[in-house]
């Protein structure tokens, strides 16, 4: 096919270095995908882990698919052609399992677009043989009607069970029935969820269903699978580097944070292991850029050794090495000497709130003031600008707290000579966080808060980006929603509300779908309930496995 009639034809070729092509004879075909464009999907590490791991099995063939660009999607629809996998160009409906990694709630309508382009019935009840699995999100309820199996936790730890079930029977219903008895496989059709007036009640519909569903986790990162034959795209992608996960989970307990619960408990990969991955991945990929992946790299118990040894490996080979965000105190304190050896150090700080009081309430311990005392250190690290993350709309936030964001940015510029690129996110009371039961501020109030923020930082030559209100609302509704949202997602998909497509993220799609389906957004966003749609799930690993951070 001549892909050059489409924008970014490279997306569709599927000939990446280390891509795996197998014959399908006698094998169970699985297609894994990410419901967004190639450049975004290929940056996802979880997908690479699953791809490499599944292809290790002789009787499994695992291929990939991503959402095509809108021009290609249009071509498929008008020519009545089906979306195919990248490796062997097999139509999606020829696979036995479609596995989707869903990192963002905003991509829900994209899931439907992807399935529909592949000629796969959208609703779970309409599909005869194909199993659609999902993973990577905390509250799967809004997708309950579409997905057959949600995998809870880390697929490395459940893959064997999953494959055994596939081998045992070719029939979808047998497979679901067998999976239902295993921990970590949530099969929405086996449960009912009702709103009782004061909260949600989730019950088993069949005695064999598990409640709680459970979660699978890798106990030892050193022995768990990690891809060595790194898939290298021949064109640029969003995170254009090989990423090595140095730890999973986070030992800190920031109140608003969902990631720490979903990826709990905190585990580390040893320096020895990380270094051997670095060498092997480099040998197999020739990638000129590497980065470490971690929610909180500063907490890694051998971070100094890691930086030292990785740097000496990378320097002789002219490989760029990027570190994830480190605590300010560490950058200018114990890690300063190590970092000054690196060519480029970028400083990203999740400040979250400019006022110390608010940070206290969030259980976020960072040392902003130390930035001012470390001007020399910052200069020699050649740090000229800092990327800072803030949150707006936090419970208990005063107007003055908001203004202090502007003041802090200004001070950093004046006293430390730092250009600040501030990125402000609207607070969303995410499921499984310490603040899940707090109401999200009303839209009108958030609008006022945004105004105050913009006014207080006006004329300060600051790069300030604030997440658009409607986008945050959409994310909040989808992350906190219940099963009735499937009709909304379906409507939005039908009217073209696809993320990444022209006009796809317009609020209009959502506004009319929410209205037509008579969704009570007040209940989703602002009401405190005795149980939420997601409350029956248990993603939190026992707390005693976590290390507390000083």
């Amino acid at each position, binding site marked *: 096919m*001549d*892909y*050059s009639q489409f924008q970014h*034809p*490279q997306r*569709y*070729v599927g*000939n990446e*270095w280390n891509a795996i092509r197998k014959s399908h004879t006698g094998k169970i075909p699985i297609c894994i995908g990410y419901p967004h464009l190639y450049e975004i999907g290929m940056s996802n590490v979880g997908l690479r882990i699953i791809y490499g791991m599944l292809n290790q099995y002789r009787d499994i063939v695992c291929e990939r698919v991503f959402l095509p660009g809108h021009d290609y999607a249009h071509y498929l629809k008008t020519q009545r052609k089906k979306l195919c996998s990248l490796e062997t160009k097999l139509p999606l409906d020829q696979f036995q399992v479609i596995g989707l990694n869903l990192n963002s709630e905003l991509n829900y309508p994209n899931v439907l677009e992807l399935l529909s382009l592949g000629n796969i019935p959208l609703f779970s009840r309409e599909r005869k043989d194909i199993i659609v699995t999902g993973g990577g999100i905390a509250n799967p309820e809004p997708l309950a009607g579409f997905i057959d199996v949600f995998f809870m936790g880390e697929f490395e730890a459940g893959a064997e069970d999953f494959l055994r079930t596939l081998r045992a029977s070719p029939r979808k219903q047998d497979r679901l029935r067998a999976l239902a008895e295993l921990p970590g496989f949530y099969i929405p059709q086996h449960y009912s969820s009702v709103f009782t007036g004061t909260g949600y009640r989730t019950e088993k519909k069949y005695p064999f269903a598990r409640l709680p569903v459970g979660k699978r986790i890798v106990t030892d990162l050193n022995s768990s699978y990690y891809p060595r034959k790194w898939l*290298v795209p*021949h*064109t*640029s992608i969003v995170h254009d580097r090989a990423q090595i996960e140095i730890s999973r989970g986070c030992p800190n307990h920031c109140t608003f944070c969902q990631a720490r619960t979903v990826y709990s408990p905190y585990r580390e990969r040893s320096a020895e292991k990380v270094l051997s991955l670095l060498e092997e991945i*480099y*040998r*197999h*990929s*020739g*990638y*000129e850029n590497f980065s470490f992946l971690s929610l909180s790299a500063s907490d890694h118990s051998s971070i100094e050794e890691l930086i030292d040894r990785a740097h000496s490996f990378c320097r002789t*080979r*002219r490989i760029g090495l990027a570190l994830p965000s480190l605590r300010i105190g560490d950058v200018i304190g114990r890690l300063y000497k190590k970092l000054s050896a690196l*060519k480029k150090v970028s400083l990203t700080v999740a400040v979250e709130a400019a006022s110390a009081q608010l940070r206290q309430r969030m259980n976020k311990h960072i040392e902003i003031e130390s930035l001012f005392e470390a001007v020399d250190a910052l200069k020699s690290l050649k740090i000229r600008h800092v990327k800072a993350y803030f949150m707006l709309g936090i419970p208990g936030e005063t107007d003055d707290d908001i203004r202090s964001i502007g003041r802090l940015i200004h001070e950093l510029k004046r006293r430390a000579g730092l250009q600040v690129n501030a990125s402000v996110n609207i607070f969303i009371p995410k499921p499984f966080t310490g603040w899940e039961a707090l109401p999200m501020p009303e839209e009108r109030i958030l609008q006022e808060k945004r105004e105050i923020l913009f006014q207080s930082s006006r004329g300060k030559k600051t790069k300030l980006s604030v997440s658009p209100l409607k986008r945050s609302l959409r994310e909040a509704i989808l992350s906190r929603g219940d099963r009735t949202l499937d009709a909304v997602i379906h409507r939005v998909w039908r009217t073209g509300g696809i993320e990444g497509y022209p006009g796809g993220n317009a609020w209009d799609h959502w506004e009319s779908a929410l209205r037509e389906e008579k969704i009570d957004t007040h209940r989703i966003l602002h009401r405190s309930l005795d149980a939420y749609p997601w409350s029956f799930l248990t993603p939190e690993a026992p707390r005693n496995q976590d290390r507390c951070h000083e």
Partner: protein
Amino acid sequence: MNKRYAIPTVLIKRGPMRFFSQIDLTRVIERAIRRSELPVYYTQGFTPRIKMSFYGALKVGAEGRIPLKLYFIERIDTGEICARLQPQLPAGLTILPDSGDTRG
């Protein structure tokens, strides 16, 4: 400054690789050289890069041949360089010694 030896080659782009741009090709060659562990020459300065010079470009979608000069810090036979690079290239790219008659 390191001594460098220019090696004239010609790159043939065909099949699936025709959908990749000249910038993509630079990346592909750079990574192939890195995997081959050939003693390549890096540009000096703050951000060293593998030096290579394409003579001309092909449109995305077009097949064809492009003269390409590579640089190494040791004197190595052009044939050997191509022989070591070829297994590191994706299907659709062929690298050959440039006999000299491809460039005007």
